[in-house]
Each structure stands twice: as C-alpha cells, then as structure tokens.
C-alpha cells in the first residue's frame, strides 16, 4: 500500500528545501561519478589490452570475471560490498590497532568501488571494440620503425582507441552518474540522501524524490551535451590528424 494520503498537496517549501539540500551534496555525487569512472577507465583499458593480446590464463580469468560482473545487478553488488565491509571493518581496525571508530570512516570509497565495478565491463568492452577496429598494419608499421610495444601503444594505438570508444564511454559516464543514486541506501551522503534529508522530518517523501529527479535530470542533460561535444571534438581532431 502506498503510504501517501489522498488529497495530498505538494509542499512547495519542502520541495525548495529538498532541492537546496540535494544541490549542497552535489559534489559528493560528482566525486562518486568521476572517481568511479576514472578507476573503471584505467582498469577497463588494462583488461581490454590483456584480452586483446590474449595473455594466457589471465585473459580467460578476466573474461569470466567480466561475465560475472556484467550479470550482477549494481544494487546487489552494493549490498554485498557493504556487507563484507561492515562485517570486517572492526577486525581490520583491531588488527592494525587504529584509533578510529567505524562510524568516522567516510564510506564514499565503497560507492566508488561499486560504481567502478559496475561500469568496468562496459569500459573494457568499449576499449576492446576500439582496439579490434584498428588495422593490424598499424602495429607492423610501428614495430618496423623500431617502437617498443609500450611506445607503440602510447603513441599510435591509444590515441586512436580513445576517439572510437568515446561515444560508448560517454554513455557509460551518464550511466555511472545515474547509478550513483543507489549508494544512499547504504548511508552515503550524496544528492539523493541530501534531497530526502529534509523530508524525514515531515514524513513526506514525494518532494524529496521530485527534487532528486530534477537535479539528476538537469545534470544528465548537461552531461549528454558535454558528451556529444567531446565525441564531436575528438572525431574532428582524429580526421584532421590523419590527413
């Protein structure tokens, strides 16, 4: 049964409070998204290279790991990670004799971890697809002029991989941004948590969710525009560079 009363009217003042409170916590949401994506991009590129070069054992292991990550919903991953964390944090503190209380630790890193795991199958797939689209002849040409594999990747291959992968990566950025809303369920303070905070005093939650929706919507639109601009820019640079 829904817990709202019928004949309910929107409390505009509460909506304003929720919007302000949500916006105040926007830096945390941005931190979650940016750091989550940064880790995911780094790991994703490494995983893509390992799978591209078909390194024995490691490549197969990562393929299985990616399937497992891809099949696990973000919410379930979040619940498992936070459960493992909270069950072991006391032991870790005692083991290292740290003078901190579990409640003092900012759990935002758990959210960052989950977001990076959640987006990693996507980022690695984007990089792998882009790697596969590069002609073999480019590798041969690089080796022919005496580049090492490291130099070849850094100066020839990766600069071509990034523009090709960019549209997918930008979609993943927006997906990570939206998925960051989940972390309020384990008590991490971000936009969603901030928007709902004033509502807890009134026991009226609709305003909080509307405020959170408005903030996420506005930022998603901005991010999509930014993504289109970046995709367009790198594509132009790529085609100019190749002329």
């Amino acid at each position, binding site marked *: 049964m829904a817990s709202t009363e019928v004949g309910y009217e929107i409390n505009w003042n509460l909506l304003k409070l929720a919007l302000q409170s949500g916006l105040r916590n926007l830096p945390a949401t941005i931190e979650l998204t940016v750091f989550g994506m940064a880790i995911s991009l780094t790991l994703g590129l490494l995983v893509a290279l390992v799978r591209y070069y078909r390194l024995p054992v490691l490549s197969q292991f990562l393929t299985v790991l990616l399937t497992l990550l891809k*099949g696990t919903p973000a919410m379930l991953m979040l619940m498992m990670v936070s459960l493992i964390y909270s069950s072991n944090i006391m032991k870790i503190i005692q083991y290292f004799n740290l003078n901190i209380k579990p409640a003092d630790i900012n759990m935002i890193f758990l959210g960052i971890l989950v977001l990076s795991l959640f987006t990693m199958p996507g980022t690695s797939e984007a990089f792998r697809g882009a790697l596969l689209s590069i002609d073999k002849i480019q590798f041969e040409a690089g080796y022919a002029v005496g580049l090492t594999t490291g130099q070849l990747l850094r100066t020839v291959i990766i600069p071509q991989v990034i523009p090709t992968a960019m549209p997918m990566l930008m979609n993943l950025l927006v997906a990570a941004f939206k998925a960051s809303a989940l972390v309020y369920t384990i008590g991490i303070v971000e936009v969603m948590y901030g928007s709902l905070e004033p509502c807890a005093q009134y026991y009226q939650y609709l305003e909080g969710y509307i405020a959170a929706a408005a903030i996420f919507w506005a930022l998603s639109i901005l991010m999509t525009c930014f993504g289109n601009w970046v995709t367009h820019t790198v594509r132009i640079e790529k085609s100019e560079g190749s002329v």
Partner: protein
Amino acid sequence: MDRFTANLWTGPNSSERKESMGEFFSLDRAVKAFPKILASLNVTFEIVIIATLVGLLLGVCIALIRMFRVPVLSQIAAVYISFMRGTPLIVQLYVVYYGLPILLYNLVGININGWDKLFFIITAYALNEAAFMGEIIRGAIIAVPELQTEAGYSTGMTYGQTFLHVILPQAVRVAIPSFGVDLVSLFQSTSLAFLLGAVDVIGRARTIGSNSGHYLDVYVDAAVIFITFSVLLELLFHFIQKRGDRIYHGQH
C-alpha cells in the same frame, strides 16, 4: 539510521551486525536457501514480462508519435523520453509509488492508495521501459532505407502494405540486438523492486537473511540467479539474431 535509507545500512549498530559472529559464508546454508530464492523468480519474471509488454505497446505509440511529428504530443514524448533516460530508475520508482496515487486522485478522483505494491512497481518499470522501447523502435524503423519505401510504392503497394510487408520485417531484425540488451538490463534492474516491498529474488533473499542473520550466503544465491539468467537471455537473443540474419540473407 534514517528511515529513507531503507535499512540497508550495515554498520556496527545494525541488525546485520550479527553477521560478523559465527561463519561469514557457508556454502551449506547457501545451497539450502537456493531453492526458496529460486522459487521467487516468478515475481521477478512477472515484473519483467508485464513491464516489457506494456512498455512495448506504449513504446510503439511513442515511436509513431515522434516519427509522424504529431504536434504537441511529439514534444511531450521527447520530454518524457529525456526524463526517463536522464533520471535514475530508483527515483522513478519512488516518484510513481508516492506520486501516482496523488496524481490520479487529483485528476480523475480515483483512490488507488490501497492497491497492491506490485501494481506500482510494475507501472514504474513499464513507464520506464516505454521510453527505451520507443527509442529502439524509432531507431529501427529509421534504419530501414527510404529507398525500400519507394520500392514498395513503385510495385503498387499502399503505405500500410509497404510498412507491414517491407519495412516492419527489416526493422524487427535491426531492433532485436538492442531489444535483447534492454531486456537484460530490465531483468537486472528488478533488483530495486525489493525497496518497495516486492518479494522477488532479492526481497526473498533478504527475508531469509534477516531470519538467519547471515546475508552473504543469500546474496551469493541471488547473484548466481541473476548471472545465470542474464547469460541465458543473452545467448537466446544471440541465437535469435543469428537466425534472423540467416533468414534475411536467404531471401537474396
């Protein structure tokens, strides 16, 4: 912890704290709980199937409205799609849950407050699906070259006949991969339904977890179920796509 964090906080003062006493993970407990959790998969499937069917129906309407550029409705559809794609599903779920009874009461005077929770959950997923389906369908129809329509006309077919016999079969083939991806993501996103009280895979797992005080076993069970069915769905769509390609190329 505040009420709105859905009691998922697993900190030192929560009820899940007893987890750290005794065994952390037991395969035996996980195996024992597995059939019970698997049995609640039908609730998950109910959400997925109804949301897909309703979403498909609404999605066709949205795609047609946008393709024929129906004035006013077309702009509303664009805003609707932007909202559904730009906001987190978890927010949409709660907005439907708290907002739909108010909206319906104020608009048409029906009181749906006492209706089953599952109704609100399925409605939220269906409304979300409609936006994504609308875009998939529109994209697939646009992907069929204009030339095909002209070829249809030149053989004397009407617009309706051309659409049904020439455009639609090709559009379906284009749409299948995106449809498969969308279905897998819908299936996985049902992992949020327990927040509104659905006793689906995760909801059932958490009930068992709270009774035994051991959550990790049941979470692993739920993960196994989600991973297995995600892979199966992917394989199914891969098979359908391959078959579609074969039929398509066989016609030439």
